[in-house]
């Protein structure tokens, strides 16, 4: 009966693993809902800002901020890589890095050098292993990321852009399609790709305090920060969704495994009983 006992311990250990993954799945589900709410809450701010910015851009055509300038040839580009802080979330981060690596390869073929800014410890770990010019990083944002934590890293990249050390800045993060699907995306952040808007029906302009330039500068920085913040929040929702799915399949797998082991255990027990009986019977016959 040595086998039966071992199997029993194994089943018990898998059962406790299943309990953990089940709990993680439920935690991820509730966190995902909150992250989605946060995603929705951050939308009005940047939409409103874009509205004001596009108005300002049209109203003061003589001043173009460098963030809105025409594209210059890309010699060096910056990536803001948004990743999760923790693992156990399926292929979320590795899918993103794979997409990023493909993009870097493409850019490098065109003679463009990349520089990075990492958000989240998984991205930092990735560049630690593989090298790369990491200009700034921030980790441990937690479930409720705050824009304060992003001001620094974003400013490093924007300063580099203004100093012409970078010719474009991209954000690499996951897009939340639905609970089952998260798509790694690389979006251009700066120069801002302006949408063509319909001509104004009549000309009007704001009264600026203190002047258009200062206002526009302050707005643009905040707008870019809010875009990065959105990417971080969206990636957070992706992380939770992805973790939920991964933990669900882990729980299912544990269930399958327990079922199989249970069968093996029953057979082993039956075999032991049969053997005992036949021993008794043959013993009795010998007497």
């Amino acid at each position, binding site marked *: 009966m040595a086998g039966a006992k071992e199997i029993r311990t194994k089943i018990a250990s898998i059962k406790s693993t299943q309990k953990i993954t089940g709990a993680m799945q439920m935690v991820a589900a509730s966190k995902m809902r909150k992250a989605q709410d*946060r995603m929705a*809450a*951050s939308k*009005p*701010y*940047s939409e*409103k*800002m874009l509205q*004001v910015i596009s108005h*300002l851009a049209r109203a003061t055509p003589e001043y173009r901020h460098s963030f809105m300038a025409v594209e210059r040839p890309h010699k060096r580009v910056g990536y803001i890589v948004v990743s999760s802080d923790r693992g156990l979330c*399926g*292929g979320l981060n*590795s*899918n993103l*890095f*794979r997409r990023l*690596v493909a993009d*870097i*390869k493409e850019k*490098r073929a065109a003679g463009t050098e*990349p520089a990075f*800014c*990492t958000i989240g410890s998984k991205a*930092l770990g*990735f*560049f*630690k*292993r*593989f*090298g*790369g*010019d*990491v*200009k*700034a*990083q*921030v980790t441990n944002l937690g479930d409720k990321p*705050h*824009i*304060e934590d992003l*001001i*620094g*890293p974003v*400013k*490093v990249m924007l*300063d580099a852009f203004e100093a012409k050390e970078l010719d474009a800045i991209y954000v690499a993060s996951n897009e939340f399609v639905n609970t089952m699907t998260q798509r790694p995306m690389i979006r251009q952040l700066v120069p801002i790709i302006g949408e063509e808007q319909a001509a104004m029906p009549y000309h009007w302009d*704001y*009264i*600026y*305090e*203190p002047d258009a330039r*200062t*206002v526009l500068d*302050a*707005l643009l920085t*905040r707008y870019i*920060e809010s875009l990065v*913040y959105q990417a971080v929040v969206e990636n957070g929702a992706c992380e939770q969704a992805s973790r939920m799915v991964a933990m669900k*399949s882990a729980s299912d797998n544990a269930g*399958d495994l327990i079922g199989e082991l249970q069968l093996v255990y029953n057979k082993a027990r039956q075999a032991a009983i049969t053997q005992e009986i036949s021993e008794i019977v043959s013993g009795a016959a010998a007497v």
Partner: protein
Amino acid sequence: MAMTIHVDIVSAEGAIHSGQAAMVYATAELGEVGIAPRHTAFISRLKPGDVRVENEHGEQEHFYVSGGMLEVQPHVVTVLADTAIRARDLDEAAALDAKRRAEEALAGHTAQFEYAKAQAELAEAIAQLRAIEKLRKMKG
């Protein structure tokens, strides 16, 4: 009915207030401003301080903003509030901090991105994920 103006106070992390008001007071960069309905289009930076929203009955609601932008159109006032205290030197400090953290975390690593190594590891991770998927399908 008294004339009212729509007020939205939004921050990057969520909406703070939305509603009608008879008058809105805010601390703009060049001094306090009071916005009445049909105010001409106006835009300004805000200093850290109070934003007061007065409804038709003269009741005031107070909101503290740590800075931001005030945008006024004849029928809408929008306050784009900052959630953090912003100042040039504070931002600078945050940027330096982010840089320093990166340098500390990556001390001794090469600046050259090792493309081949990264791709190899990623390919392996993806292959593992695929294998798991296949196993699951075979079982299921």
